[in-house]
């Protein structure tokens, strides 16, 4: 079992949950620890209930885990919701002036802080937060110096007096805990590693910059807005044109326009915005102008639950825009992969001149993860495919009238000239057209030409499938159970498998990253050897299960689904697997015990 430690901070929006979260995250990552942070929140600026879970440890931490070791409730509501879920070994630090704790489980340490005795609360409204941080770090066995350094950075802009005040309050909490509270049994270790801590949205934005994206545009929509924020803040340093557009229809069309003129262009949205973009996706395919669209899924349908996660957009992506056309859809497996996937996706869509969709979700978009800086590679390969630019017309590319933009080729790929190149004028059209770009519907539609163009475009799908990597089984062979997931559930399924293996149930995992094209045959071959298979996904209807069946005829033994807005915790999967292996059911819908 991996050593991990989780801090849960709960309060109303506006009470300052984020700052202690940032301070803990910095201290953990500077100790060389991995971390994973997930914030459960609501679409509200002030009030409600926000619960931030930061889980850390010396090995990779892939999800929020099952237990809270240290609970810091900033109000009565938070302790009422979470104290009952603490188990032996955990502790709860709270403001004894304002909060009545109730009775915790056996072995849970209650740590009341006499806040008004320890700090001048008339001067410092968030003194309780700072005291709790100091007390908590003492109990974790972390030196005060580490906290002092981070506080100095955090409050640097507000001046020395504010830094000094916060340091002295933190010190009071730290010392109080030393004398009154029992430290945690396993102090947090230190390692020599140093990690970057980032959200999936930042990772995708940076991945875009690394891919050479020169044009980014968006309309704000949770949970994708973080991509826009990073892009906008770094645009000038990165040489990227960033625009906020009037709606998502404008967004996708503007991105395609920029792409058509020869730059790499990207945009991000969530399900509702994507719905507006779908006609544009078809245009990208028909004009053969590559564009990358990120969809950060949130709980739907319609406006749905804007601040909650789900994997419910798969069929929207599969069916986006009418007609048949080649498309690429991939779901990043974790926040590091959010970065890595973007340059890969651009190389494919540039080469095959079609739209690419990155199917992310709130869990990754807004979650935070420690990533080795070496994995944020700004020098990955850039392959623009058969692109004719003003900087160089390749020999043999032909000029008017020899140049045909939609030349029929075996691969389905036709060399693409961008506007500005002499001798290659042509019209790119959303109407069906011939090799020369002339609309076939203008006078006499032509069945032979129509068929040839359909087949040319669709041939590209085979090339894409040959290029991308087929999925592989992770974990021990000859398992009792194989868990199949896609995208963001990678980490939690991996941990569930570890727990099952410790408990004597041999479990392995098949995680899907490339959704379209899907390696149906390869998946069938892999799963042939599995004794019992279960598809795990964050939606109601088993969208991936239905898709897999349509592409490969594969039917698993069971399903684990969750559609309450919150992500899976490892024990949800572990318990459901056990229930299914006894034959009790083949569909488990674990209940989320935490009311967030």
């Amino acid at each position: 079992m991996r050593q991990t430690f989780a801090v849960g901070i709960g309060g109303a929006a506006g009470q300052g949950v984020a700052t202690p979260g940032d301070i803990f995250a910095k201290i953990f990552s500077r100790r060389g620890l991995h971390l994973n942070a997930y914030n459960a929140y609501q679409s509200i600026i002030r009030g409600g209930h926000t619960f931030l879970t930061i889980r850390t440890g010396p090995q990779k931490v892939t999800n929020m885990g099952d237990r809270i070791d240290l609970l810091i409730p900033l109000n009565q509501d938070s302790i009422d919701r979470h104290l009952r879920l603490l188990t032996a070994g955990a502790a709860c630090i709270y403001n004894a002036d304002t909060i009545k704790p109730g009775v915790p489980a056996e072995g849970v340490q209650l740590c009341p802080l006499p806040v008004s005795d320890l700090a001048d609360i008339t001067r410092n409204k968030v003194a309780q937060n700072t005291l709790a941080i100091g007390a908590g770090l003492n109990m974790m066995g972390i030196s005060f110096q580490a906290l002092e350094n981070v506080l100095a950075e955090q409050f640097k802009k507000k001046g020395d007096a504010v830094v000094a005040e916060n340091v002295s309050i933190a010190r009071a909490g730290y010392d109080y805990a030393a004398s009154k509270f029992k430290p945690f049994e396993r102090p947090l270790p230190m390692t020599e590693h140093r990690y970057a801590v980032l959200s999936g949205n930042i990772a995708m934005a940076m991945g875009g910059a690394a891919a050479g994206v020169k044009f980014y545009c968006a309309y704000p929509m949770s949970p994708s807005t973080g991509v826009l924020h990073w892009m906008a803040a770094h645009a000038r340093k990165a040489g990227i044109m960033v625009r906020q557009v009037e709606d998502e229809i404008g967004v996708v069309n503007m991105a395609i326009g920029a792409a058509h003129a020869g730059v790499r262009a990207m945009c991000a949205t969530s399900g509702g915005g994507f719905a507006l973009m779908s006609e544009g996706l078809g245009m990208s395919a028909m004009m053969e102008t590559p564009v990358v669209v990120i969809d950060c899924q949130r709980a739907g349908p319609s406006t749905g639950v804007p601040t909650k996660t789900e994997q419910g957009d798969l069929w929207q992506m599969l069916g986006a825009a009418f007609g048949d056309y080649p498309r690429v859809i991939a779901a990043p497996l974790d926040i590091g992969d959010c970065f890595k996937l973007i340059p890969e996706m651009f190389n494919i869509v540039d080469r095959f001149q079609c739209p690419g969709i990155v199917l992310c979700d709130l869990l990754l978009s807004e979650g935070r993860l420690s990533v080795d800086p070496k994995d944020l590679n700004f020098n990955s390969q850039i392959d623009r495919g058969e692109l004719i630019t003003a900087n160089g017309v390749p020999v043999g590319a032909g000029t008017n009238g020899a140049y045909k933009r939609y030349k029929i080729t075996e691969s389905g790929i036709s060399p693409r000239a961008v506007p500005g190149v002499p001798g290659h004028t042509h019209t790119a059209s959303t109407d069906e057209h011939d090799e020369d770009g002339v609309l076939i519907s203008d006078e006499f539609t032509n069945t032979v030409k129509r068929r040839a163009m359909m087949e040319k475009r669709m041939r590209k799908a085979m090339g894409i499938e040959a290029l991308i990597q087929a999925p592989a089984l992770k974990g021990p062979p000859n398992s009792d159970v194989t868990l199949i997931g896609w995208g963001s559930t990678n980490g939690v399924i991996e941990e569930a498998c570890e727990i099952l293996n410790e408990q004597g149930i041999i479990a392995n995992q098949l995680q899907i990253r490339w959704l379209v094209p899907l390696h149906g045959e390869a998946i069938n071959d892999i799963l042939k050897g599995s004794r019992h298979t279960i598809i795990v996904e964050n939606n109601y209807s088993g969208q991936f299960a239905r898709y897999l069946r349509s592409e490969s005829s594969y039917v698993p033994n069971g399903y684990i689904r969750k559609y309450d807005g919150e992500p899976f915790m490892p024990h949800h999967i572990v318990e459901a697997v056990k229930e299914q292996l006894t034959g009790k059911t083949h569909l488990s819908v674990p209940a989320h015990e935490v009311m967030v």
Partner: protein
Amino acid sequence: MATGVETPKQVAMADLKGKVDPDWCPGCGDFGVLAAVQKALVELQIPNHNVVTISGIGCSSNFPGFINTYGMHTLHGRALAVATGVKLANHQLTVLVTGGDGDGFGIGGNHFVHTMRRNVDLLYIVMDNQIYGLTTGQTSPTSRLGMKTKSMPFGNLEAPVNPISMALAAGATFIARGFSGEQKHLTELIKHGIQHKGFSFLDVFSPCVTYNLDNTYQWFRPRVKKLEDDPAYDSTHWLAAMEKSLLWGDEIPIGKFFERTDVPTLHGAEPVLNEGPLVDSGMRIPPDAARKFIEELM
């Protein structure tokens, strides 16, 4: 606008002839607009490879196929959004957007307003025939009140939009109206619109001879009055332009309503483009910048 100097060859009408002949109905006003655009490009000597003609969907939106420039025949109502992307990616290109009244003021109304307020440097020509033609004759956003069409057989109950007033209100920096029956005048307006640095809006009366039997050449001819013929008219005066834009009836003004040259274009206002067009800029993030991006996260 840049006019591309690397091609020594003179630009002639023959260079601008499309791969196919227009399939508009005989007598359609759009023929006149096509000819005027070609004449304007010849007179301005802009090589065809430096021009991108972008349209939406509709009769007039088939325009890019009938002229030999780079062309994009996009989605219904979306031409201006696409054109904004093209212009921002390569601001050395001359961008022409062509379409109809349904495409521009109906389904594309949102982009129309926002592209104007952004002052994107392009010329938007609307071939305004006050009807939906390609779908065989329904009411358009500029159809007159009471006009009977297949979709409103008992008469239009909705007041038409006024494209010129809309453009003034939205902040377009060049606003003009032409008439397909006035070739020379139209050509001059197109040249002026191309040369204007900023968003140029040109609404052109382009009669539909098949489905709009109200607003015909014969109906327009006695009514149109050139603003240029009125020496007292000051096209730098926004309020005067707004007042003129409201005239409709026995006298309908055509010509340049308004122009201002003191508003920066969108591409001119963005420092990212100071070094030149995006399409020519390097794709790699400088190592120093990349390192800083990562350090911020540590």
